[in-house]
């Protein structure tokens, strides 16, 4: 990074924002991992923890927003400093959404408790969430290193999660057709899978924001997408 500001307080303010984002990111990772474990193991206590963790995420996003606005009013930032602060606002927003999605999954634990989650589907869900967690973890690392290259490569990997989600979608439809008693729990699991796919999207958003913070540009080319589920028609036997 370049030399420090003459105003030491300015550097402190920017560092504080960075630190809070990193803390939010850590909590987001934990919530995603916990929510999937709660689903797979029907763990109501763990689900409750995720739900209450979301309150912390919401408060953190508001606090980062307030601090960013005050820093803008005080310092009239330009160039890299301005991108830094705007980037922090966007990333806080994406992380808060990740928290919400984790909470949404945790809330469904009760609904699925009666029937539980079939082994095969559980594995699929775990695999999907592992991919999303890797995206999230790596993008939070790039937030500290600010490598434009790495940010771009993370962003280009979003299609892996989409492909995994598409195949899980197909499986859930099959389960539902096999036995109508599965429909309720499979519908919940479908929402959960969609939520995890959205978490992957938010991680990709963060990667694009970091690329912008580092270079001042958007990454080239369309973001690769592989979610084909919108084109699925009725499946006949």
């Amino acid at each position, binding site marked *: 990074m370049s030399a420090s500001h*003459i*105003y*030491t*307080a300015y550097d402190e303010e920017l560092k504080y924002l960075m630190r809070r984002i990193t803390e939010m990111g850590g909590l987001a990772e934990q919530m995603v991992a916990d929510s999937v474990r709660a689903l797979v193991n029907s763990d109501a206590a763990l689900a409750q923890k995720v739900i209450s963790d979301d309150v912390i995420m919401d408060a953190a996003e508001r606090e980062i927003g307030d601090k960013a*606005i*005050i820093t803008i*009013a*005080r*310092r*009239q930032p330009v160039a890299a400093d301005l991108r830094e602060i705007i980037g922090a606002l966007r990333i806080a927003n994406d992380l808060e959404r990740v928290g919400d999605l984790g909470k949404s999954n945790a809330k469904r634990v009760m609904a699925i408790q009666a029937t539980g989650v079939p082994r095969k589907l559980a594995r699929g869900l775990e695999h999907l969430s592992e991919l999303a967690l890797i995206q999230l973890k790596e993008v939070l690392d790039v937030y500290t290193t600010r490598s434009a290259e790495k940010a771009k490569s993370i962003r280009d990997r979003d299609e892996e999660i989409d492909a995994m989600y598409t195949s899980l979608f197909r499986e859930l439809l099959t389960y539902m057709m096999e036995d109508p008693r599965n429909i309720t729990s499979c519908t919940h699991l479908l929402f959960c899978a969609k939520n995890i796919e959205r978490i992957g999207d938010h991680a990709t958003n963060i990667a694009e924001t970091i690329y912008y913070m580092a270079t001042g540009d958007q990454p080239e080319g369309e973001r690769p997408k592989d979610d084909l589920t919108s084109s699925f028609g009725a499946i006949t036997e």
Partner: protein
Amino acid sequence: MNVLSDAAVEKALEQKMTEVDYKMIGQDVSVYYGEKRALFDVNLNVRKNTVTALIGPSGCGKSTFLRCLNRMNDTIASCRVTGKITLDGMDIYDPSIDVVELRARVGMVFQKPNPFPKSIYENIAYGPRIHGLARSKADLDQIVEGSLQKAGLWNEVKDRLQESGTGLSGGQQQRLCIARAVAVSPEVILMDEPCSALDPIATAKVEELIHELRANFTIVIVTHSMQQAARVSQRTAMFHLGLLVEENDTDKMFTNPDDQRTQDYIMGRFG
């Protein structure tokens, strides 16, 4: 007034804080230049160890108010000040007050750097010597070094203390003037647009210095740059046509001021 209203509670809290937090208090301060009235019943409290910025358009009375705080207005023949101004609870216009001593306790730094046409050493030593603050040459040396350290100038001038103060760059001269003000151990430092004549880097250094000085001094700064007020102060007071329009926490002032006139001014929406 409803005793339980928010305004009543706030006023009670403010009054409770009077003894502890306020270094200087201005009550119903009005200033007249001959027949012309420049300030209208200004009530403004200056908090201890805080930077208070006075902002407002040209001619609004901010510099006039600043000059009341160390009775510099006394030097203007046609100027008349009414109301009450206290320093640590003591009326500064009380007949028993020694104005020279007051101006050592409430120092001033001006817009245009004005070092004495003496050596750097002498610039700093002059005040303490006159006020009898040093018993020996060693004491004086210590005061000079300490003041230059506090002003962030020591490393740049320690090997040329005998050179003329006027030979320094603009930014260095202003920091020399700040060191000179600091040398007589004031409690309050008044600054009248101290960075107007300086380039951006010199300005940044002076502002960083103001930030550091706050720990040991109370500072009031007049500035026509709102951005400077936002950067450097914790409290901001906005003046307009001789009236105090709003006095507030700086962060609040620049994100969500209470008064519409303040909002218009800082946003640059005039007329």
